[in-house]
């Protein structure tokens, strides 16, 4: 590849050789380091065809007489010959020259930012940070100070352990390594509080670590009812309260609850059938300009469009501010039909699985579940009925303290 490019730039010749001692000519070229390639014998003309650099053609002249061969130029190719051929076509040359100039100018700006290795910080967060640092698409590459940028990223996001920024072609490549271990131990709120019920249900399980229990196992509770008090009374020998100590109530309380969820179920579904008519097109975008090359889609018909957008790149990391969108449109006809019993069953199963997964994520245990379909006037609805065991306690500020009756002093 590299060699053929060099040949193109230098200019090369296709030569036909006839004569008495062609092998001697080849050996002389070899000994004088004259490059010859694609050498082959042509039976019909009893000649040898080969390629050589135009600069080497003058060097082989002395060998021609020595070997008794005759050289005939068949073709001249490469950049010098192309320029020479087209020297009078001024506009053509100007067009090529301006294309090269525009291409060169384009490569002086940043046209793509690639982030790799970020997991905790999203691309949007980091790109908005880069925007704040005046690093954006279309800026000059020279203005980017990669070392300073790395330092700024590390300072702003302490969770990022290591960052590498480099400009390659027209692309800014940022590699990030995040810290997956907690840097700070989370601080727990130790202020005194009560635990109240977050649900309506029956207590099935209780472990009190701190505080005074206000309910017992098997007791029914309502939402907001005090479960564990953060005021622990201190009594004397006669069981009289002498003091109340305020603590942060801490307990695991599980309550059995009942939950009914009503979800609408459509009676009819929309079906789409492809007519088989497909139209493909291309859209080219640069700046605010957009050119679409596609046969028009009829408005009375319905079309499903798939668009695939990608940025144009010359090679490797040389991206240009041009986006090409490949559009593929398929015509379809939509109609509505009644949902079959099997489809309804599948839909209910799907909804049930989704709800069960939601409960499991919250740490809720499902004891019993069932579903029934309710026929309403306008539509249908599925009623999901669950019996669950779920954490019931939630923290709440301490309730106002009652006045402690001081025991009568005995004389």
């Amino acid at each position, binding site marked *: 590849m590299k060699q053929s490019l060099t040949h193109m730039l230098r200019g090369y010749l296709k030569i036909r050789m006839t004569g008495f001692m*062609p*092998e001697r000519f*080849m*050996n002389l070229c*070899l000994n004088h*380091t004259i*490059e*010859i*390639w*694609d*050498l*082959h*014998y*042509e*039976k019909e003309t009893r000649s*040898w065809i080969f390629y050589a650099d135009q600069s080497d053609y003058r060097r082989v002249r002395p060998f021609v007489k020595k070997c008794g061969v005759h050289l005939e130029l068949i073709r001249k190719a490469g950049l010098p010959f192309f320029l020479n051929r087209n020297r009078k076509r001024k506009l053509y040359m100007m067009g090529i020259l301006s294309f090269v100039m525009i291409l060169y100018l384009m490569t002086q700006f940043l046209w793509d930012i690639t982030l790799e290795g970020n997991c905790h910080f999203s691309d949007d967060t980091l790109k908005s940070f880069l925007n704040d640092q005046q690093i954006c698409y279309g800026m000059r590459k020279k203005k980017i100070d990669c070392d300073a940028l790395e330092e700024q990223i590390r300072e702003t996001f302490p969770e990022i352990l290591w960052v590498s920024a480099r400009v390659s072609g027209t692309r800014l490549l940022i590699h990030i390594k995040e810290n997956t271990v907690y840097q700070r131990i989370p601080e727990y709120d130790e202020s005194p509080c009560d635990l109240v019920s977050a649900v309506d249900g029956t207590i099935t399980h209780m472990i009190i670590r701190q505080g005074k229990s206000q309910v017992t196992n098997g007791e029914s509770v309502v939402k907001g009812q005090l479960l564990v008090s953060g005021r622990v009374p201190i009594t004397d020998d006669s069981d009289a309260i002498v003091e109340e100590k305020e603590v942060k109530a801490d307990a695991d309380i599980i309550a059995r609850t009942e939950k009914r969820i009503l979800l609408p179920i459509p009676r009819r579904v929309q079906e789409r059938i492809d007519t088989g008519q497909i139209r493909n097109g291309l859209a080219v975008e640069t700046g605010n300009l957009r050119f679409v090359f596609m046969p028009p889609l009829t408005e009375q018909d319905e079309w499903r469009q798939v668009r695939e957008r990608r940025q144009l790149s010359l090679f490797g990391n040389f991206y240009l501010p041009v986006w090409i969108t490949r559009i593929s449109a398929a015509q379809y006809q939509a109609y509505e039909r009644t949902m079959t019993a099997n489809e309804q069953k599948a839909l209910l199963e799907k909804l049930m699985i989704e709800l069960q997964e939601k409960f499991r994520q919250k740490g809720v245990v499902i004891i019993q579940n069932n579903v029934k379909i309710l026929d309403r006037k306008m539509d249908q609805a599925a009623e999901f009925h669950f019996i669950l065991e779920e954490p019931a306690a939630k923290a709440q500020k301490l309730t106002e303290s009652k006045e402690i009756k001081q025991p009568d002093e005995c004389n």
Partner: protein
Amino acid sequence: MLEQVKQMAVDSGKLPKDLILGEALLYLTGSTEAVIENYRSILVFTDELLKIQTKTMRIEILGRSLGIEYYNQDQMKIIGQIQEIKFCR
């Protein structure tokens, strides 16, 4: 005498023959490509026969539509349908 010493050194020391004795190296890729190293000159070249002189022998490559993709001081790449290779001392 020197050649015998070299031969002994190669045999006893298991040294590469191409470096010490200047033996030709021939690499084949299927029957369509061959690369020869340590050659001296081209003796005959047609589309059916390519005769190459090396330091110790002549190599004859017979085939159809033979051609030389490139050749330089180090190696030569031959393309075409290779049917036979002969080594003549």
